[in-house]
């Protein structure tokens, strides 16, 4: 704490927070404007279905991810079986795969016309769809399965850490009292991991709510697609904003739940950690079943889609390998670099103020700034456009007043709107990452540095920055990859003639011709692998 911290720093913190929550505020204002009865028409007709679809989807994806992830996490954290070390990180791979690509690949495979049903028909001599039953992949349940396949690693990662951090003395006690491994999982492991699981599920639910491409491809209308349709189909920004407000309500309830769960979690983390010898040695059938379970999971959620993509990319290489592909890659890269740079700077300022400020009110800016992560891209796009359009007109009005030709659409006509939206959405990631690093720097270092007469800026520059290096890098990396993948905000905010890899791939997916976009999709996946490798390495170093 620096008693003499200048007001300037607090002001900077608040200014950043205000800018970052401006879209949310604008959205709420927009939602109160009249909408020519579009909203009430929607209420009377399709809205109940949209809402129930959204909730059902979240529920199914959360349960699906939980059922997939918990056994995997338990096996990897608490048991020993062949290839366990590899599974530990390989189970994170699906995170790099955009859900709509997985959805596309499986639809192609499992559709009536696909190889799976084709084989069944040939094998059993069926000739028409009336001859047999096959579940429809393009359905709510199908979408839930696709989303679970790529989102389960969130729960897996948190559950694995929780299982690994559970105290070994408790474990020994349970063994002495005669608990079988199975019992110790149900009575000890699972209940103690509950807060971590809740956090994971909240993350999964938020990602599900934000998904646009998968549900739109599967023709399962949810609130996210409804916002898009209402805005562009009915042309009513206000009705779309009202829908967004409903959605935000649901999401903030979940965020609150997650915060609540996390508060409890801290109680468990300060005990003796598990060692290698504490793992159950699985042998024979059990060992092979565990091996099979983890392999199948990786196969289905990562390898199969990746191999199919690679096949497409090779077949259509000549058509895809052109100047456009390079331009889109450059655009994606450019945006991602700029966004991660800005996010890290903002997070640094916010967290520095929070760390050293003696004023209680200075905790607020970093909290407020983090809310953007919960806002789905479609919704955020509306929130960003409203104030930026206003700003654009205001600037041009000033020029007009002085009789000069204005600069035109400075913000909404350029990638600035896009960058702004991405920053609002992803700054929370860099804040979290830097916050974690800060926790490890002893406050006595600050004291010592102040005692020696260092100014706050020097403290940040000379003491904190070197120690925060890892956190800053991890934060930037995660923001980078999220910016590469983010689709709905990019679809709605990209300026004239601007495409990036994500929008480019999605255009092909929605035309049912992923083949042509496969090369770009592979770039997205490969770039997404980099932070996973890094993330895993830093986790391993910790343990």
């Amino acid at each position, binding site marked *: 704490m620096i008693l003499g911290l200048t007001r300037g720093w607090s002001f900077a913190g608040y200014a950043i927070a205000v800018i970052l929550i401006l879209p949310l505020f604008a959205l709420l204002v927009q939602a109160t404007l009249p909408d020519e009865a579009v909203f009430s028409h929607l209420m009377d007709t399709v809205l109940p279905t949209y809402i129930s679809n959204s909730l059902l989807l979240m529920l199914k994806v959360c349960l699906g991810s939980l059922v997939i992830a918990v056994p995997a996490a338990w096996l990897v954290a608490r048991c020993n079986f062949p290839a366990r070390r590899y599974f530990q990180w390989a189970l994170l791979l699906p995170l790099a795969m955009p859900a709509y690509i997985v959805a596309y690949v499986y639809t192609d495979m499992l559709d009536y016309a696909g190889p799976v049903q084709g084989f069944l028909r040939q094998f059993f001599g069926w000739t028409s769809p009336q001859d047999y039953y096959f579940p429809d992949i393009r359905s709510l349940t199908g979408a839930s399965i696709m989303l679970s396949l790529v989102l389960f690693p969130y729960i897996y990662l948190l559950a694995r850490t929780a299982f690994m951090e559970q105290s070994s003395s408790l474990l020994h006690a349970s063994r002495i009292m005669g608990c079988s491994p199975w019992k110790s999982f149900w009575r000890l492991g699972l209940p103690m991991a509950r807060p971590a699981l809740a956090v994971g599920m909240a993350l999964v639910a938020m990602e599900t709510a934000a998904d646009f491409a998968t549900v739109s491809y599967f*023709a399962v209308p949810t609130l996210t697609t409804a916002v898009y349709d209402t805005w562009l189909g009915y042309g009513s920004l206000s009705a779309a904003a009202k829908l967004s407000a409903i959605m935000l309500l649901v999401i903030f309830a979940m965020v609150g739940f997650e915060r609540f769960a996390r508060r409890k979690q801290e109680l468990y983390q300060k005990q003796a950690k598990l060692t290698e010898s504490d793992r159950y040695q699985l042998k024979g059938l059990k060992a092979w079943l565990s091996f099979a379970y983890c392999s199948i999971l990786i196969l289905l959620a990562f390898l199969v889609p990746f191999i199919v993509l690679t096949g497409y990319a090779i077949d259509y290489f000549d058509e895809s390998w052109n100047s456009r592909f390079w331009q889109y890659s450059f655009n994606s890269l450019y945006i991602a670099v700029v966004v991660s740079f800005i996010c890290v700077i903002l997070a640094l300022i916010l967290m520095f103020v929070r760390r050293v400020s003696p004023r209680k009110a200075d905790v607020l800016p970093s909290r407020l700034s983090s809310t953007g992560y919960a806002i789905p891209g479609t919704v955020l796009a509306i929130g960003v456009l409203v104030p930026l359009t206003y700003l*654009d007109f205001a600037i041009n009005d000033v020029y007009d007043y002085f009789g000069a030709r204005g600069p035109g659409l400075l913000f909404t006509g350029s990638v600035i709107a896009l960058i702004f939206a991405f920053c609002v959405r992803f700054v929370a990631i860099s804040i979290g990452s830097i916050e974690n690093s800060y926790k490890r720097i002893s406050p006595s270092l600050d004291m010592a540095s102040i005692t020696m007469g260092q100014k706050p800026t020097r403290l940040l520059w000379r003491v904190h920055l070197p120690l925060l290096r890892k956190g800053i890098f991890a934060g930037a990396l995660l923001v980078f990859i999220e910016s590469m993948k983010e689709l709905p905000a990019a679809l709605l905010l990209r300026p004239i003639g601007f495409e990036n890899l994500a929008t480019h791939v999605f255009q092909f997916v929605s035309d049912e011709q992923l083949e042509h976009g496969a090369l770009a999709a592979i770039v997205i996946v490969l770039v997404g692998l980099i932070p996973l490798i890094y993330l895993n390495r830093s986790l391993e170093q910790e343990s």
Partner: protein
Amino acid sequence: MKSLKSLAVLGLAAVSSVSSMTATAADDLTIYSYRQAFLVEPILEQFTQDTGIKVNVVFAKDGIAERIAREGRLSPADVVLTSDFSRLMELVDKKLVVDVNSDTLSSNIPEQYRSPNNDWYALTMRVRNVYSSKDRLGKLDINYEDLASAEYKGKICTRSFKHPYNIALVASMIAHHGEAETKTWLEGVKANLARKPQGNDRAQVRAVKEGLCDIALGNSYYFGKMLVDPKQKSWADASEINFPNQDNRGSHINVSGMALAKFAPNKDNAIKLMEFLSSDVAQKSYAEVNMEYPVKANVAPSEMVASWGDFKADSLPIYKLAENHQAAVKLLDEVKFDL
């Protein structure tokens, strides 16, 4: 503070460099296009060659009207090209376009295919066809109305009815039969669906080939597109293309079109481009590349398109569809067609 400042300067430099990324020269034409690049680019290149006027095109699937509305008087858009009629009407409804009074345009484009106030012009037309399985149904003499009859229960495949092509069809049904009857019809069609609406027009024809359904709705040009794609030829080969309502009012016609943006910065050049698009050369190429029917009377369709035979087109003036567009969208929500 010095180092912090230099960081901030660096950040600002990064941000300001992006705004220049998308800037265009002042007298270039800017086109917002719902039509795809492969279709539009060759013709625009020809235009640039002929006139020396540079053209920038923005391609988008959705939201062009929203975008122009938001951009208001600052919008860089000169001409909007749409892939169907409801998109044109959306622009008119939102008062985002202005009328163009040009003798060239009014002589090139027949009255039925342009706005009475000259605020939009059609460029090509296509039929909303009914495709039928060659093996199971053969060539059909069918009306759109028949799609609701019990005979086709569980046999129809379609894309989302919220797609502009289907909305326009529903709007034409309302124009001919009124809302109440159209609602009953929609309920009937929905009850006959083989599966929930999904995919695009081609995917429906493929589903017919695979035996999922016997009847599919699709635009005429898809037939040609599938025939020339080696991977998709077998889909088209398995179906017949039928022109509905030949014994009565004729097949429903949809059009692609163009309009002049209200705040077009380069109106004169924009009109030059519009006139060019209505010329014989452009009409021929525009219709041929996408296998549509040219609107200009003396320009013949491509050989392949002509081979599907003559047909009678619904004589309902295109702008009549506009009056029923909103009603169509609302009816679709009411019967929850896609859900």
